[in-house]
């Protein structure tokens, strides 16, 4: 590959409200390479990309594309300079159809000035087909699974001819095989000379797809290099300052009390005949591919979905849970996936997001004890290492990973006995992931029942004592965590194999 520099960002500085977020960062991307941009949560990756994408203006510094000085004064300008941006948080409009989302703002019109629907649908089907995604261009986005929404975001950026594509955590809600399809696509793009800036906290992906990397740390450049010349450990160390182990966690003893038992739970079209139980102190995992129904299953158990048949028993008592409030009364907690849609209250401050599900704790004669709220937040800030300068700012100002940590804090504060985590480490950096896993295991050791939903097999394998694999709404297999392997999980998750009795 010839080393032709495509993009150069030099000495970029940016502060928000007097807090220095980027302290003179430089980044160089070559033509036709996949360049990994790495760093801890809050290191400044998204901010740097927002500057390149014209969302924010730098306080100082320069950007050149193929030697030309450019000024990205707004997102349109950036697009005109050949830059596409896949944002960290999904921006799809749920009430529009797939093709309408793809062409939002760039609709194709026919010669009479009317929308050229067929052409847009054709192009939509074409691009989704090339990404290996099978959805109808005229289905409504609100009815789609999360990973499809992420693919729509990706497809949107591919529609327009661009020379540089920024992918800010494009795989945070994709399953492994979907990631593979994305990578095939990225490789094809590379062939045609497109450069890609790839942000991810999944080091396996970096190793697989990226050519060179740049690491940011606290808004400064911590290092850069060629991926192949470094071991992943070294890169991790650059990012978080320490090596991270990948070993399975040791578990404490499981107690005999069954906290949650589910019998024959079914909802037409979502999942059927679900049976399982979780004991105090146990960590149970549910995994599968998109559309396996696990999220819907636990949304029902949490009372968000009401129309189900079958039985939910909490501590041996049959409960009719038809509202999340009732679930919380029964001491069930649920950290939903896709925080932007399901969890973040973007107009409330960081502290107020943390306390939202446990306000009764802060109630003093009808008024909220705000100093207690601050105190509790400081506790979680230290515990989970939440990076925030002023917790009174609205939560959307936090970096993605730090928003996720606040959501975890919110449910830790609610202190349930049964805690369901759906994709809990979405957007969390490798170092913090380790700490969060340790927190989760500490909860189990305290006698809580933990349920983890994840499409990342390694995460499930490291954490769980029992693993259920779901396929198209059914539990097709269950494993003892010690004996399971990624391949075993995959063969059941893809429907290649199925067997209803238990192994191990």
């Amino acid at each position, binding site marked *: 590959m010839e080393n032709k520099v495509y993009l150069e960002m*030099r*000495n970029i*500085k*940016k*502060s*928000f*409200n*007097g807090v*220095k977020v980027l*302290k*003179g960062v*430089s*980044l*160089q991307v070559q033509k036709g390479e996949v360049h990994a941009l790495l760093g801890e949560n809050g290191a400044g990756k998204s901010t740097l990309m927002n500057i390149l994408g014209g969302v924010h203006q730098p*306080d*100082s510094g320069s950007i050149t594309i193929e030697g030309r000085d450019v000024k990205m004064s707004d997102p349109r300008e950036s697009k005109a300079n050949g830059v596409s941006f896949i944002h960290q948080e999904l921006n799809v409009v749920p009430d529009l159809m797939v093709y309408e989302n793809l062409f939002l703002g760039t609709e194709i019109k026919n010669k009479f000035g009317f929308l050229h629907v067929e052409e847009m649908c054709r192009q939509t089907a074409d691009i989704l087909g090339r990404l290996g995604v099978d959805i109808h261009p005229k289905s409504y986005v609100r009815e789609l699974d999360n990973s499809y929404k992420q693919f729509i975001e990706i497809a949107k950026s591919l529609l327009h001819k661009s020379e540089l594509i920024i992918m800010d955590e494009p795989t945070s809600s994709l399953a492994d095989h979907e990631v593979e399809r994305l990578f095939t696509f990225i490789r094809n793009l590379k062939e045609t000379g497109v450069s890609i800036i790839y942000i991810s906290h999944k080091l396996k992906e970096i190793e697989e797809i990226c050519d060179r990397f*740049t690491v940011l740390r606290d808004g400064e*450049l*911590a*290092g*850069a*290099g*060629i991926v192949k010349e*470094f071991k992943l450990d*070294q890169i991790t160390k*650059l990012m978080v300052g320490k090596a991270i182990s990948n070993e399975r966690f040791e578990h404490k003893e499981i107690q005999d009390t069954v906290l949650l038992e589910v019998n024959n739970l079914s909802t037409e079209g979502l999942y059927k005949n679900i049976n399982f139980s979780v004991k105090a102190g146990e960590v149970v995992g549910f995994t599968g591919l998109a559309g396996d129904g696990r999220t819907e299953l636990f949304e029902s158990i*949490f009372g*968000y979905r009401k129309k189900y048949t079958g039985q939910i028993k909490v501590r041996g008592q049959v409960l009719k849970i038809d*509202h*999340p*409030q009732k*679930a*919380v009364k029964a001491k069930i907690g*649920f950290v*939903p996936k896709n925080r932007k*849609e*399901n*969890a*973040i*209250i*973007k*107009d*409330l401050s960081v502290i*107020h997001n943390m*306390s*939202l*599900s446990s*306000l*009764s704790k*802060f*109630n003093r004669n*009808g*008024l*909220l004890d*705000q100093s207690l709220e601050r105190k509790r937040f400081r506790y979680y800030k230290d515990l989970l290492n939440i990076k925030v300068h002023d917790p009174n700012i609205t939560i959307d100002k936090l970096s993605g990973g730090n928003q996720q940590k606040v959501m975890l804090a*919110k449910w830790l504060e*609610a202190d349930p006995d049964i805690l369901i985590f759906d994709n809990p480490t979405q957007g969390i950096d490798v170092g913090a992931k380790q700490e969060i896993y340790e927190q989760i295991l500490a909860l189990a050791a305290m006698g809580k029942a933990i349920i983890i939903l994840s499409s990342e097999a390694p995460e499930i394998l490291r954490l769980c004592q029992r693993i259920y694999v779901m396929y198209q709404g059914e539990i097709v297999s269950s494993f003892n965590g010690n004996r399971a392997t990624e391949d075993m999980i995959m063969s059941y998750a893809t429907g290649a194999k199925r067997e209803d009795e238990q192994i191990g």
Partner: protein
Amino acid sequence: MNRLANPELKEPAKQGSAMGSAKSRLTWIWSEYSVIIAFVIIFILAAIVSPRFLDINNQLNILMQVSIIGIVALGMTVVMLSGGIDLSVGSVLALVGVLTVLALNATGSILVGILTALASGVIIGLLNGLLVAKGKIASFIATLGMMAGARSIALYIAEGGSISGEVSGFTAIANTELWVIDVPIIIFILMAVLVYMLMHKTSFGRHVYALGSNEKAALLSAIRVDRVKIAVYSLAGLLVSVAAIIETSRLNSISSSSSGMQYELDAIAAVIIGGTRMTGGRGKVIGTFFGVLILGILNNMMNLMNVSPHLQGFVKGAIIIVAVVFQKRE
């Protein structure tokens, strides 16, 4: 081992960032306090244009004139923060007024009159809330229906005209002064403080903001979203009934055809000028308070300057649009 992509990294810091942060702090102050700044500017302008403006009697007069709309606008703020809107406030004010006078005249008891007002206001608000929360009807439609319905019933009961109170003490409510301040002003300020406390210091307020900002996330946070909505509209109804008591008491009569006419527009205008976002989740009670005062000063100024009453609507409209344009800029 770090192959730095750029060798000239250790360049000394430039001045730019310090200047940038000062600027961003300024925009922050502007976005947080723009209503108050606008209020101060308009206040000073009014004082320059018309010397009579600063007269204490004129000041109290302004406050007196805005107190009724102000109380209605407080309720509207809560509804709009929750992501809804209440178009029925004007008609409901007329209906509650009519019912109050009827109860007053029938029993001769001021207390019964007041209780009738409060109860009917809450019940109508509750009805709005049920339509929105349980009937899943868009608040715009539900309260538009209530607007037409309530006005019609008020007209029917009063046979299209006004009805007057026959109990002597009732007018004292709106026409008494404590020291030099009229009671309606005191009630308005008191209500503003109470609604402020409710929205910023209690769980209910937190729930309303959460609901207006992201309803699904609020539900998944175990908030009883339906109940919060019902409570929001009931509270708005309650505040309308307080305003109705003052309105009726002031002239000792209520007109089924003209009382409360277009109050919803003035209330919504005050809320918007006060910086509350139309789609909910963002805004402040203090903002509405100053929004109401701004509207009051503009009216007063135009009266002092003898602007034709027919043109006053135009000026008000322009101000609302300017206010919204400024908010959009953040």
